[in-house]
């Protein structure tokens, strides 16, 4: 080994040591509280749940390993398929409403008008109202002799006597409308933030080129809002597939399970029938479905990159 080689090696080792000594552990310390809390209350229970899904577990007795029996039962459980189908219906009805309508609301309240903050507040109010209170209020609206039927009769549908929440066909759309109404203000706010970030220069340029307001919306606003769509789509998907409170309060899953969502069925199995093993197995399936839908949504919105 010649002298030069030794010197070079020596300097490399010192450099490495230096780098090692310089390793900045401070950010990791700051991450620690979140990691500890998340692991304790989120990841460990999730791993536990994964284990319980392969057991027969009724809370008051120790879990008993039964392999994939819970998953096999699920495949033959009509109620599970019905609940899953209903959750998909909620998703298909609610998501378009809370993705599209709030955009128009946001465009409306994005205008510089006198007292516009008042309208923003009005649209946002349902978001901060407790779901239990909102659901009870809507139950009165949907009552056979409630305001909605009275309104329909007033505008000419004289035979409007729909029992919204106890009609197996009308109940899902009825609950979806309430959910969309409640969530609209929240999504409006996200769109509003997105709209306000759109470059004024681009809009100005489009106007000078003679673009109509619709063309400006289509070719300037919407492409710029793509990252916002990515967020709203994922949030709306996660929210609607997990719908629970409104259904629990308004129909309890009835009539004849026609409004039973998968989360509500999981709840009933877990906390009413105490069948935790089966409930966690369904929870796992729900988690996989949500992951798949999230990835699809993310791909559709092209990873949230805006198109310039």
């Amino acid at each position, binding site marked *: 080994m010649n002298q030069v080689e030794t010197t070079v090696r020596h300097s490399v080792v010192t450099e490495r040591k230096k780098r090692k000594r310089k390793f900045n552990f401070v950010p990791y*310390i*700051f991450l*620690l*509280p979140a990691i*500890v*809390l998340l692991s*304790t209350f989120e990841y460990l229970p999730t791993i536990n749940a994964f284990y319980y899904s392969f057991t027969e577990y*009724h*809370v*008051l*007795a120790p879990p008993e390993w039964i392999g994939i029996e819970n998953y096999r039962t699920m495949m033959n459980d009509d109620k599970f398929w019905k609940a899953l189908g209903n959750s998909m219906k909620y998703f298909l009805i609610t998501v378009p409403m809370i993705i599209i309508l709030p955009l128009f609301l946001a465009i409306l309240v994005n205008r510089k008008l006198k007292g516009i903050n008042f309208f923003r507040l009005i649209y946002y109010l349902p978001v901060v109202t407790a779901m239990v209170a909102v659901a009870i209020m809507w*139950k009165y609206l949907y*009552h*056979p*002799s409630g305001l909605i039927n009275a309104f329909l009769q007033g505008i000419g549908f004289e035979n409007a006597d729909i*029992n919204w929440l*106890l009609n*197996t066909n009308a109940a899902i759309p009825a609950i979806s409308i309430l959910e969309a109404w409640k969530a609209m203000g929240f999504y409006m706010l996200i769109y509003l933030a997105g709209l306000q970030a759109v470059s004024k220069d681009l809009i100005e340029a489009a106007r000078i080129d003679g673009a109509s307001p619709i063309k400006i919306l289509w070719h300037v606003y919407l492409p710029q809002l793509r990252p916002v769509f990515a967020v709203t789509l994922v949030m709306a998907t996660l929210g609607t597939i997990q719908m629970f409170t409104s259904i629990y309060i308004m*129909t*309890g*899953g*009835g*009539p*004849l*399970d026609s409004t039973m969502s998968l989360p509500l069925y999981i709840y009933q199995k877990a*906390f009413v*029938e*105490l069948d935790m093993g089966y409930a966690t197995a369904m929870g796992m399936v729900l988690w996989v479905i949500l992951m798949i839908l999230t990835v699809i949504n993310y791909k559709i919105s092209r990873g949230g990159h805006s198109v310039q």
Partner: protein
Amino acid sequence: MNRKKVVGLLMIFLLSFIPLLACAPDKESTTEKDGTIELEFWTINLKKNFGDYIQGIVDEYEKENPNVKINWVDVPGADVTKKFITALKSEEVPDVVNLASTDISLIRSYNVLNPIDKLVDEKELDPYIDGLVEGLTFNENVLGIPWYHGGPPVGMLNTEIYEKAGLDPDSPPQTWDEYMEMGKQIHEKLPDVYGGNDIPTMEVLIGQGLPILNEDRTKAVFNSKEHVDFVEMFVKGYKNGAIASGAVTEDDRQLQQTFENGQQAHTGQKVASGLVSIEKNAPSVIPKLKVFKPVTGSEGKVALGGIQTFVVPKKSEHPEEAAKFALYVTNAKNQLEFTKLVAIFPSTEETLKDPFFTDFEVKNIHDEARKIMVEISPKLTINTLGIEKEEELKEVYLEQIRAALLGEKSTQEALDTAVEHWNEALSK
């Protein structure tokens, strides 16, 4: 290390571990150094309306037993089973818990309750009505001490609606046929008003004298021609307005047409304590109401859905003392006091012999209800079948009844489906 860094690290430590410290078991012995025994006592939703009464019992017991301290916890009705199960998983177990008898049948198979007959002398259970103790006996173990119950149901009608519909409020329905006929007439005359919300529950079937199980309790038999004809009467009633459109709801609290909103004309069977909530929510309706003997079959039998009880968990550190306290709360004297506060029925025979039940002046609708209830008490039975997964199976039955009412299935199909499900469960 400078001060800022030290403070920062300390904050991080506190943020990370303090919440976890809170999760550490905090097991304290419930026997204090001076020998005082602490008992945790749970009731369901009684503090608001009967707080003074319960506190009075607690104070009196503590005075008579200076070595016992009672910690009274009142749990909201809908949460009690969940809270109890969560508590059973932890080390912080209540000692005396108020549970509905239907909940006992849900958790009894997990072997978490102390048999009461092993904690107290058998004679101590003598004052309670035999049928009620039998209803709480599973595999020869008495798992609960009977407390109060809603009493036999009574019939109720709105006199104003009856008069408007051309019916005589002094001639209420006595059979389900009459109930349907009158309900139909009411809905025809007053389209916004329906007959009632009664559906053919298992209690109604039992009251009608229709059997649920065969004699050796191995098979369900509620799909015979008699059963189908009886249920069919309700299905027709649902179509013609004798039964309200909201009667198919899964939760009684969600009924759409009620006495309170003036859309219900009568009920064939309702627990009399329901009058308390009507009085509270719609005081103007109470003077228009009239109570009558419940609508039943020819034998006049009426069945109770369940009763309130006290249980002592196996994890309790002082089970004997807990059972002794539960016996005190449910003794004849204390139950008599309770029945004077609200239209409920006691589980002790002696209480029923008090002049309060045998010789009283009828001053209001609650007294009228009590008079009827005392009269039909001898014909009271409990709808406890003593089979595995009883509550779940009863729900399956009701689900099929709702399907028949909504016209999703014929009555025969609905009852056949339920019977098939029951027999599959019973054969396991």
